[in-house]
Structure formats: C-alpha cells, structure tokens
C-alpha cells in the first residue's frame, strides 16, 4: 500500500496554498507536515480525505480496496471533534462503531484510558478529554490511512504517550500515517514536508 501525490496543487479562496507537491508514503511510513499557520497542512489533509478537489495533480492510494474511495480508507482527526454532547462517551463510540461498519469499543476505551468516563455525558468532558474521545476512533475501527491534524493539541503527557503508542502500532501493522504538527510527537518520521517552504516558492 502506498499513498502517492503527483504534482498536487491546492487553491483556497482564489489563492494558491501550495503547488507542485509530490510525495509518496509507503505502508508503515509516517509523513509529517510542517509549516506555519495557513501553510496548507489542514488543506492537504482534507484534500486527501476527499473534502476538496485538487486544483491540479492527483493523490491516490495504490494497493487499496478498488471499491472504496480514498476517504473510506482513512481516519481523519481534526479540530472539529465530531463528539455529540448529548450522548455519553460510550454512546458516541458505539454510534461510530455501528456507522463505520462494526468496531471494537473495548479497544477504543482502553487505547485512550476512557474507562472511568464511559458513562459520562460528553457535555461534561474537558477539551483534552474530548480530544481523547475523538482520537479513540483510531482504535475503534482499523483503517489503513490515518490523517491527523495537530493530534497532540490539548493532550496531557500520559495521553500523548498513548497516542504515540497508537501511531507506532499503526505503522508496525503496515498502516500509514500523515500528521501535521508543530511539536515533536516522538515517533521517527519517514518523511517530512515543509509546506511553508513550498508555499513561499509558489508565491
């Protein structure tokens, strides 16, 4: 399995965010996206997830399931946490497990230590706890590609260690991860892209 971008360009609001972006991530690879705010890290992740059409070029997954879109191979963790405040932690997880076609709620709860929060209404979660609930979807349903937008924001040290463990397991299991981050997430990257530098060239 291999995620390949070829001469990829992204445009937002009539402005070129980046152009001529090439990369290839093999199974087991971690691609880190760097760059200042507005460099296009989120735009690139959303483009891979299928929420935007590239202005030019292509991005595709080689060796994936032919019937599924690229987005259906992916988990996306972004700023909007998709957590329903009116549901408990467990109800949130069980909805996504059902909707994504069957998942392991116990694994998700264990992965980010949500055990004591299981029956808590998500309305009472702190920002960091909501983030953990959002991240626990990664362990809920296996998917080959993880798209993580600033996954470490709001996490305490123990949760960050758990997230690193999840990423290592995903890579060891032959999955691939594309993550944008400003801080070190402590897992060695197989490739890094500085979108800031690419954007400056485009401008």
């Amino acid at each position, binding site marked *: 399995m291999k995620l390949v971008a070829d001469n990829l360009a992204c445009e937002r609001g009539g402005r070129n965010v980046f152009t001529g972006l090439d990369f290839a991530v093999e199974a087991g690879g971690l691609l880190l996206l760097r760059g200042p705010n507005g460099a296009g890290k989120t735009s690139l992740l959303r483009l891979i*997830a*299928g*929420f*935007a*059409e590239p202005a030019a070029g292509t991005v595709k997954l080689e060796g994936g399931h032919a019937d599924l879109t690229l*987005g*259906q191979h*992916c*988990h*996306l963790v*972004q*700023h*909007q*946490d*998709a*957590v*329903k405040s*009116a*549901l408990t932690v467990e*109800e949130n997880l*069980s*909805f*996504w*497990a*059902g*909707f*994504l*076609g*069957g998942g392991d709620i116990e694994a998700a709860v264990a992965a980010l230590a949500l055990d004591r929060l299981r029956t808590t209404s998500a309305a009472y979660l702190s920002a960091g706890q909501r983030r953990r609930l959002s991240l626990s979807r990664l362990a809920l349903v296996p998917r080959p590609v993880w798209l993580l937008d600033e996954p470490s924001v709001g996490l305490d040290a123990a949760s960050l260690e758990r997230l690193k463990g999840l990423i290592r397991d995903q890579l060891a299991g032959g999955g691939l991860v594309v993550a944008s981050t400003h801080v070190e997430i402590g897992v060695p990257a197989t490739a890094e892209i500085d979108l800031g530098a690419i954007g400056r060239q485009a401008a």
Partner: protein
Amino acid sequence: MTVLAALVRRDLTLALRQGTGAGTALGFFLTVLVLIPLGIGPDQALLQRIAPGALWIALLLSVLLSSDRIFQADFEDGSLELMTMGPAAMEIVVTMKGLAHWLTTGLPLAIAAPLLGFLLNLDAALIGPLVLAMGLGSVALSLLASLGAAVTVGIRRGGLLVSLIILPLYVPVVIFGVAASSGIGGVNIAGPSLMILAAIALVALVTVPFAAAAALRAYMH
C-alpha cells in the same frame, strides 16, 4: 443494515435529549391549533369547515420548525464530514436523517392530528382520511425539509431561509393533502388525491437524497 440503524438510533436519541423530539413538535402543533379558534371566534360551523386546512398548515409549520437542525449540528461539529468517510453513501445518510426527522415530527403529528382536531370541531368522518393523508404527506414534507436544510447548512440562522425555499415546494402537498382529507368536492376526490400524495412522497424519496447530498458535498468543499 447496522450502519443505517446506528444512524437512525443516534438521531432519535439526540432528538429526544436535545428537545427537538416529538414532544416539542407536538407542543408547537397544539399551540398553533389553540390560536386558530381564538383568532377566528367560536363559530362552530366555520371552524368545522376550515379544520382540515388549519391542521395541514399547522403540520407544515411544525415540520419546518425543526428542519434547520437536520444537518446543521452534524455539519458544525465535523460529524457529517466523517460520515462521508463511512461505508454508507451520502445519499443513504440523507435518507436516514430524513426518516429520523419524520419519525420525530411527521408521524407523531399525523397520529395526534385527529385528537387535536376536536379543538376545531373536526368532522369525525374525516379522521381516517386525515390521518392517512397526513402520514403520507408528512413523508414528503420531512424529505423536502431535509433538502432545504442541506441547501442552507453552512448559513448561520438559516431557519428563515429554509422556510422561504421550502414552503413553495410544500404547495402540492397541501393541495392534495387537503383534497384527500377535507371531504369537500362534488365527486369523491379523496382516493385519487391520496394516490397523488403517495406519488409525491415517492418522487421526493427518489430525488431529494441526491439533491441534498450534492448540496452537502458542495458545502464541505
């Protein structure tokens, strides 16, 4: 099937817990119907004549009231985007959310309509046709409401705009709904009107999911 059941179950739970469920819609329906005799006066013959029409108008307004929430909350918190990455097509997701909306508004209101019809001196002979017509018609109403909700999902306070877009589309439903349930008309037009209502509901079931899913995709891009 579990995928669709999970979605409908979640939407029903959310509707119940967030106060957008059957209770709220019924309360609104009741309030509108109580206001009508107060505005028109206690003329029983007049009330009896306008009862089916008044019930239909109240039904439209109640369905519209909750329509802007069909997609908005899920759009704002990112749930809708994640749903496009699931195994179900967006068209199916739209249909299921429309179904959940119908289960929490259209269906309970159609069942409650004859009871509340007593406030308007509704002719007892019309109870059967009215429930049937409202049950069928409200399927189309909920589906059209989800189209309006999808088209305005990115607009804050889009509720009024939904009404402007959707109310004209409700015209055929009202015309044939009232024709099927009012008992007026020299010849018996209730049967054919019911069939046309069913046809409208089926056409909406086939076309609305595609239109609404296209609108939602456009907003996500």
